[in-house]
């Protein structure tokens, strides 16, 4: 457990001191959301209707953008090999990385989401539902992302291929994520979203560990 906590601390420290990655992601999230009105027109009624979808797409894209940070630096400087042979199982290491990744790549987006909600003319009940659905759903996105990053870590330009692998797998998250905000059966969608998140977070560390150890030997 000490090793797990040390790993978590290391990841957080690296992310926070490593030159503004967190702020860049938040900026990307807000800018993607803010760019939509320029494409579809500043009609407030239309924007309010599609706002949940825009927020989810922005979060999805921002989290894809942050994926390369997850394993690639460790792979390049060789510490991933050391972590593989460490006393702490690789799956536990990846679980720590996953938690850290969610804290630095998803939580700031959720904190910034009120700003986007205001820009997109979202009303207050929708806003609260969106906040809960982002909190419940982003762990699943982070978990799928970790698997995609692990699969592509051995490829030199894997940053390009990981998104096209992850996007189809993330479709259920987007469906239930936006469904839990707008659909008539939003409570059911929220439960499905939570189930998906729990399952993905539980299984992703093992799948990612398997992919990394297959790629390294």
């Amino acid at each position, binding site marked *: 457990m000490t090793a797990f906590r040390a790993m978590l601390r290391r990841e957080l420290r690296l992310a926070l001191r490593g030159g503004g990655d967190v702020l860049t992601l938040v900026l990307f999230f807000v800018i993607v959301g803010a760019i939509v009105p320029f494409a579809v027109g500043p009609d407030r009624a239309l924007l309010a209707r599609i706002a949940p979808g825009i927020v989810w797409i922005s979060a999805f894209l921002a989290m894809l953008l942050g994926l390369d940070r997850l394993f690639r630096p460790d792979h390049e400087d060789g510490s991933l090999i050391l972590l593989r042979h460490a006393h702490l199982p690789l799956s536990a290491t990846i679980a720590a990385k996953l938690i850290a990744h969610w804290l630095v790549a998803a939580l700031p987006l959720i904190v910034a989401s009120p700003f986007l909600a205001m820009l997109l003319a979202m009303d207050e009940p929708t806003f609260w539902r969106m906040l809960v659905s982002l909190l419940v759903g982003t762990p699943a996105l982070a978990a799928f992302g970790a*698997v995609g990053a692990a*699969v*592509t870590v*051995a*490829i030199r*330009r*894997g940053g390009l*291929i990981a998104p*096209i*692998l992850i*996007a*189809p*797998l993330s*479709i*259920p998250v987007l*469906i*239930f994520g936006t*469904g839990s905000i707008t659909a008539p059966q939003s409570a059911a*969608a929220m439960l*499905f979203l939570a189930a*998906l998140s729990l399952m993905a977070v539980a*299984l992703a560390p093992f*799948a990612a560990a*398997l*992919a990394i150890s*297959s*790629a390294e*030997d």
Partner: protein
Amino acid sequence: MSIDTTSKQSWWSRIAHPGQFVIWTKPLLWPLTILTALLFVGGLYFAFFNSPADYQMGDTVRIMYVHVPNAWLSQFVYGVMAVSALGTLVWRHPMADVSMKAAAPLGALFTALALFTGSLWGRPTWGTFWEWDGRMTSTLVLLFIYLGIVALWRAFDDQLRAARVIAVFTLIGAVNIPIIKFSVDWWSTLHQPASVFRADGPKMPGSILTPLFVMFFAFTFLFLTLQLKAMHTEVKRRRVMTLQRRAAQGESA
């Protein structure tokens, strides 16, 4: 006196050697090709000349004889890939790698054909090429997964290492496909419910069912033939790459 140990090997481990695999399965290729061709001739004859036009859809119902087998193969090929992935990860069977790699583009092709014929059929019957309903959408997502796997194969330099990583991803996809299917169904339901395989027997008349089943087997055998040929090609491609590498090493030495 030499002891013959080779005869004690099972066929399973014998075909693990790529060269042996090619030698053992090469005689299968021609009979499979001929069988496929015969099935296609028979199936197409039934489909075009010996089956009735639908009283509602008219002659466009004949698209079904191409569409349904492709849609079946789009899922069957993923099954083949998932089983091969297990073979790679669990038994480390060398031919499982090759089978997995050969199946990916074929699966993508059959899925694309299922979508293409489906939209050609949808235009006259539903009045639209594309409709965001459950089945079409999940088939589209399946196509994206296939294309992602093909892209992943192409991105790796070392094909042996690629096989194990892609096997992991293929199995993750296999777990995910039912979830995607369920979520997409939840998202939208418009497609007609399943009408061939039902608990109370097929809902179609025999005159339509016969050509459908013949075409079904024709396409399945087409896949088996192409899969075998693609596996042979892959074995040869790897041999060429090994020879090239050895030649390059010889030059530098």
